[in-house]
């Protein structure tokens, strides 16, 4: 279908964007890459009166490393992250996850800020940000504030972003030396929404994993850190029994809803399978 009618504004500065968002309230939606928003409008799932296109506001794009912090501008596209040498070296989890996001043509337009602000439960970046303990920079008329990824996602498509606030950057602490990462997801076809996925980070030494972080997507209303599974495997030699104890602990971390493809128990099964694969990959 075609999108319903709306007006379009293209502010040249954040201040101008905040003014528009303030005056139009819930009638306005922020447009970044548009790869989810325009699809939703075409399907008439949403009917804003005004789209505020923030893509020409300078300073919201690009990847920079300063010391132990990587800053990714909100308008940086999935494709730019996929090809960034800085990301490949300092935050390889993101480079591993990027090719799973939809398809090449969509990765050229879609942005990391848009994905995080939308908070689709099957999206890749939110889970990666939780696994890497990222922080989001949220800007509004009254200034900037920082919210940690693990506190940002409140519910299905609901986040800590307040009305008339814009997510401007993602800050990622560079993982310590010896840290490894793996990103896995299950889809019916390449590029489809994930039925389940995991973003995993750990240090591997002498057959054991430490500082393990397992963040899941597609198995809850938000990305979920599986603290019980993480504790079950932390510091232990990676035996079949240790993997099983982490898998069993997952039932205490995840309580997935079913969807049209998979029952809740099936979703949990996917998560168990992904957990074993991820732990073996981290150790291998």
């Amino acid at each position, binding site marked *: 279908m*075609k999108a319903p009618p*709306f007006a379009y504004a293209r502010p040249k500065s954040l201040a101008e964007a905040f003014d528009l968002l303030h*005056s139009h309230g819930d009638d306005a939606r922020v447009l970044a890459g*548009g790869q989810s928003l*325009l699809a939703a409008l*075409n399907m008439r799932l949403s009917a804003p009166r005004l789209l505020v296109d923030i893509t020409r506001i300078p300073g919201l794009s690009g990847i920079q490393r300063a010391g132990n912090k990587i800053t990714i501008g909100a308008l940086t596209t999935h494709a730019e992250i996929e090809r960034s040498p800085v990301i490949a070296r300092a935050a390889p989890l993101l480079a591993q996850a990027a090719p799973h996001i939809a398809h090449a043509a*969509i990765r050229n337009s879609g942005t990391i800020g848009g994905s995080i602000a939308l908070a689709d439960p099957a999206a890749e970046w939110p889970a990666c940000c939780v696994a890497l303990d990222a922080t989001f920079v949220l800007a509004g008329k009254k200034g900037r504030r920082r919210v940690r990824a693990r506190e940002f996602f409140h519910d299905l498509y609901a986040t800590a972003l307040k009305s*008339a606030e814009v997510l401007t950057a993602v800050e990622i602490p560079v993982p310590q030396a010896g840290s490894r990462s793996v990103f896995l997801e299950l889809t019916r076809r*390449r590029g489809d929404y994930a039925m389940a996925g995991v973003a995993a980070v750990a240090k591997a030494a002498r057959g054991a994993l430490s500082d393990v972080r397992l963040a899941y997507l597609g198995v809850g209303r938000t990305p979920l850190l599986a603290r019980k599974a993480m504790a079950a495997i932390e510091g232990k030699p990676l035996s079949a029994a240790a993997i099983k104890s982490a898998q069993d602990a997952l039932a205490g971390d995840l309580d997935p809803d079913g969807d049209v493809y998979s029952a809740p128990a099936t979703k949990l099964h996917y998560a168990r399978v992904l957990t074993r694969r991820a732990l073996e990959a981290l150790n291998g």
Partner: protein
Amino acid sequence: MAKRKPARLEQTVEIALTVNGIKVTRRIDARQHLIDFLREELGLTGSHVGCEHGVCGACTLRVDGKIVRGCLTLAAQADGRSVETIEGLSDAGTIAALQEAFHKRNALQCGYCTPGMLIAAHDLVTRHPRATRDEIREHLSGNYCRCTGYHAIVDAIESVLKAKSSNPV
């Protein structure tokens, strides 16, 4: 939010862009997609409209040299950009080798997906000249074909990659 402007919002927007090397200026509906703008305003009907929600790839175009979905891009977002369609790429000879290979290998039947398929394939051939068959399939995963079963399309693209690597221009 409390403060709302009662003023009627302007639902049209003026855009100026380059399409296949030609400057174009129009006043359009803000909600108009780039693909509909090209087809309906400019008569460039080579790019097709399929699913209209970013899944099928029939509307694949190039904007500033990058492939995008014409149905997930507003014409307003293309203001100031350079857009290339299948017409431009075909007339310039840019995709001649791929067109020839698709023809030779029967890599199309009804032709609906072919313009998008060729533009996506051209993107791969330029950026990953050593792509394997798996990588070809991965790159085309966002372009649906309901006729060929894909095998002939992968064959055609592979043959172009091989010809290029054995005879670099």
